[in-house]
């Protein structure tokens, strides 16, 4: 493989994994300098471009640490919820501080979705108290979209609801989509998108306009590896500005990407 094509593949791989253009340019210039001066082949020194790109990405976005001293934006205690005589939520407590990503984990049927629906007030809990400082965004486990509207129309609708102009909503939605490794401009109706892309649209419509707390139910369902990585980078950047996220997921990497983990289950909590 010639150095030029190696560099191009490397840059593409960095781009696909969501690294910003200035960072990519620096990495490329540095490697080009090295190759020129040493008159060496990129493949010999750096190995396969996509593998090397992945190792660089990992260094650029280390796993986040919790930020325990931010103000609490969401605090729920003593949540109970039953369905047809079966207790799904039994005295569940959740707290999310500014800067925190709370992962809600648990087996299928453990009540992850029920908890998020209760927090979002879509399907209120039978008992318990919920306090939320500020506004909420919510992406349900499935759906939550109008099948007959395009992604850009969704951006306008949800961004407009949070006070953005149509142009601003469109720009922010397209930027979030780009950060999630998806070019949403000109995309077809939501009903014609693939499963993973629909999840991206649900996540974007939850994030757009910057609510203080975002509740995401299985957001990465159907994401490919690069998209999954992009999602966590987007969410990490997003909570840095003093916001909080609660993410329900059964995927193992959620535990490493979140700042706090809450396990819920049949028997007890925490």
């Amino acid at each position: 493989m010639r150095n030029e094509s190696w560099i191009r593949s490397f840059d593409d791989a960095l781009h696909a994994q969501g690294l910003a253009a200035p960072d990519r340019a620096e990495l490329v210039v540095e490697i080009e300098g090295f190759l020129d001066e040493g008159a060496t082949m990129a493949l010999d020194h750096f190995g396969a471009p996509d593998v090397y790109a992945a190792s660089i990405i990992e260094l650029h976005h280390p796993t986040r640490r919790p930020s325990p001293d931010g103000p609490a934006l969401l605090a729920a205690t003593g949540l109970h919820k039953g369905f047809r005589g079966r207790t799904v939520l039994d005295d569940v407590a959740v707290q999310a501080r500014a800067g925190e990503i709370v992962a809600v984990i648990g087996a299928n049927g453990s009540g992850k979705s029920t908890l998020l629906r209760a927090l979002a007030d879509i399907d209120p809990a039978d008992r318990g108290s919920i306090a939320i400082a500020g506004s909420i965004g919510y992406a349900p486990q499935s759906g939550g979209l109008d099948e007959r509207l395009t992604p850009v129309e969704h951006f306008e609708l949800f961004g407009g609801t949070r006070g953005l102009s149509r142009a601003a909503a469109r720009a922010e939605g397209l930027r979030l989509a780009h950060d999630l490794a998806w070019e949403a401009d000109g995309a077809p109706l939501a009903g014609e998108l693939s499963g993973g892309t629909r999840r991206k649209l649900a996540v974007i419509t939850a994030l757009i306009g910057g609510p203080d707390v975002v509740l995401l139910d299985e957001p990465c369902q159907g994401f490919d590896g690069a998209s999954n990585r992009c999602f966590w980078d987007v969410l990490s950047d997003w909570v840095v500005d003093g916001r909080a996220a609660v993410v329900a997921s059964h995927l193992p990497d959620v535990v490493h990407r979140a700042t706090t983990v809450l396990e819920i289950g049949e028997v007890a909590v925490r």
Partner: protein
Amino acid sequence: MTTTEPAPWLRGVLEPCLLGLLADGEAYGYELSTRLEEAGIGTVPGGSLYPALLRLEKRGLLTPQWRAGDGGPGRKYYALTAEGRRSLAHQRVAWAEFASAVTAVLTGDRRAVTPGGVDGEVAR
């Protein structure tokens, strides 16, 4: 692969070596690679060198600075931070202890083992 494979332990000592080289003053990537080779430490492929530099940078031990090159697009120079100097000082001591311990084990001279394991105290 046309370059010689680095020795297996090089990976572990690469970061301290880079800190040591930079104690003499700032340098850029290729320059560091030639100096490592001249010092007899071995040929370090760029694919090991730059991630090591990036790790040190992310830990705040190095600070990078872009300088205009001679007609080229510029070079990224790395310099030690105060934190980097502290880390180097600490690692000099730690390495000396470790190296003598390794030497002792490799040569079978267990009596010469590190502080802590003085003289006959080492179990036979």
